């Protein structure tokens, strides 16, 4: 058991070390714009624009559920306009970034790990090196940049549609009026809520893409190795999203608490 625990710890530390090393290399490769530049828009579309529907879908249903949950919970002396408050705070600060991040960890992380892993086992990465292309600049930087910049876009869209869905559910299912919902949404709204969610989303995008790239580049073996790399990328990304979620909460929310 101790041996198993030690192996797990060793693998975990190895992953963190590989991701850290890859991060440093990616920052170094940022200077090689001519290598990663042509691939950036394609990755941004694939990782960001194509992910917007799934993010909006998740946030939309989450907004509906939150409105109903708030209405179910707020009984008696609690005014019903607080439904808007709960929907606004929860969607913007927590659920839109985290749920969208987890969904994109599966979609984007697995995609990147499988793609790069396949290139690794089919020696395409070696071929790039042979052709004097930096594989980090060519494969990692555009994906990490696209993930870091486009995750906030996806999460922003999820925030907006989550609020719209919560508002619609409050109107149609709960009988709240628009002024009531807006009163609740505005009651404790602060632009910090949006900034907090978007910064978290950017950090999630960076973590998901860098971990997926690291998992793909470390792929060994054949198709089985590719599958294992995709699985590792999704699991590690999901864990890292939750860790970063707690990290940002401690860094920003504890500091703002009065």
């Amino acid at each position, binding site marked *: 058991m101790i041996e198993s625990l030690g192996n797990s710890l060793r693998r975990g530390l190895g992953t963190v070390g590989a991701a850290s090393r890859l991060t440093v290399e990616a920052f170094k490769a940022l200077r090689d714009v001519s290598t990663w530049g042509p691939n950036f828009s394609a990755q941004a579309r694939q990782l960001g*624009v194509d992910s917007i529907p799934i993010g909006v879908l998740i946030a939309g249903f989450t907004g509906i559920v939150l409105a109903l949950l708030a209405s179910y919970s707020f009984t008696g002396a609690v005014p019903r306009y607080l439904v808007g408050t709960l929907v606004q705070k929860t969607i913007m600060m927590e659920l839109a970034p985290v749920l969208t991040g987890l969904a994109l960890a599966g979609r984007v992380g697995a995609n990147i790990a499988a793609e790069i892993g396949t290139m690794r086992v089919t020696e395409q990465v070696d071929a790039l090196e042979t052709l004097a292309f930096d594989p980090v600049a060519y494969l990692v930087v555009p994906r990490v940049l696209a993930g870091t910049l486009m995750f906030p876009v996806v999460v*922003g869209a999820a925030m*907006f549609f989550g609020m719209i869905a919560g508002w619609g559910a409050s109107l149609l299912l709960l009988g709240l009026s628009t002024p009531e919902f807006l009163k609740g949404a505005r009651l404790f709204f602060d632009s910090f809520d949006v900034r907090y969610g978007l910064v978290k989303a950017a950090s999630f995008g960076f973590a998901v893409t860098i971990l997926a790239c690291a998992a793909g580049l470390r792929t060994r073996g054949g198709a089985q190795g590719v599958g294992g790399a995709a699985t590792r990328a999704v699991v590690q990304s999901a864990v890292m999203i939750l860790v970063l979620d707690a990290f940002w909460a401690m860094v920003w929310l504890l500091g703002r608490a009065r």
Partner: protein
Amino acid sequence: MSKRANDWLVGTVVLVTMVVLIAATMYLQQAELGTRRTSVTARFRDVGNMQVGNVVVIRGVQAGRIAQISLADEGWVAVEMKLNEGIELPADPVVLLQAATLFGEWQAVITARGAAPGIREVLMQLEDTAGAPPATLPGAVLPDIAQLTSVAGGIAGNVASISERVRLAFDDSAAREMRATIRNFNTMSTQLARTVREQSRNLDSVAVDVRAGANDLSAGMTSLQRSLGRLDSATSQGELETIIAESKQTATNLRAMSERLAAMSLSLERAEASLRGVVIKADTVLSRIEAGQGTIGLLVNDASLYRNSDSLVIDLRAFLADFRRNPKRYLNISIF
């Protein structure tokens, strides 16, 4: 998809998302672009839970927002408020900070000094204007909801204690007694109603009697009026002088009679005084007799003397009888 199409699509999505997010944020923050605002500063000793962005209210209408809160000299807190264009402050304005909702949101209320609540602490804060910079409004903080709830908590505790005591006091037996009391009260009210009905009937009869009395009085008044009429006619015929003269004579007689009565009364008083003296003397004599003083007292109180006197009388009677029978035995008349 070509690289150019990717660029266009990604750029459009990013731009649209940014615009939507910024617009939604401004909408939720109720930001107003291009609106000119007036700056008003107030100072407080404490600002409670007031935060930048909280609303400023005048007569219940939102008139602006808190723009800045900063510490000032001499223990003051300066609060800068941005008021909407065209907002006019009330006369002699003061700023009150207070909780807007039960959930921790605060607001600043600009009102006239005379309209401020008459709470001693608030009035003291508003009066503390020493060293205030020009154009700075005085401010005060109304009691926080937490303070009110703590007081209310104490009151609620007392009410709960009283309720518990009432519950203990108002047990089943008390309920039965209460029920019996209500029944008694019901019976009593029935009797009272009956009594009221009877008294009402009595009152009706009294009213009838009063009405009859009033009729009699009316008749009496009519008769009096007639008598006065006759008196008036008698006066007019000269009989009144005769009546007055007779009355004078009668009064003279009465005065003489009263004088005689007064003289008789004086004689009676003298006789009474004399009689009182006699009685006193008699009482004294009788007292002495009872005490056995004097001859009579001795005769009355000494039985042996009575018996001696009695035997003396008997002897005297025998002597007289013997004297009548034999006078020569006792009388010896000789001449020379």
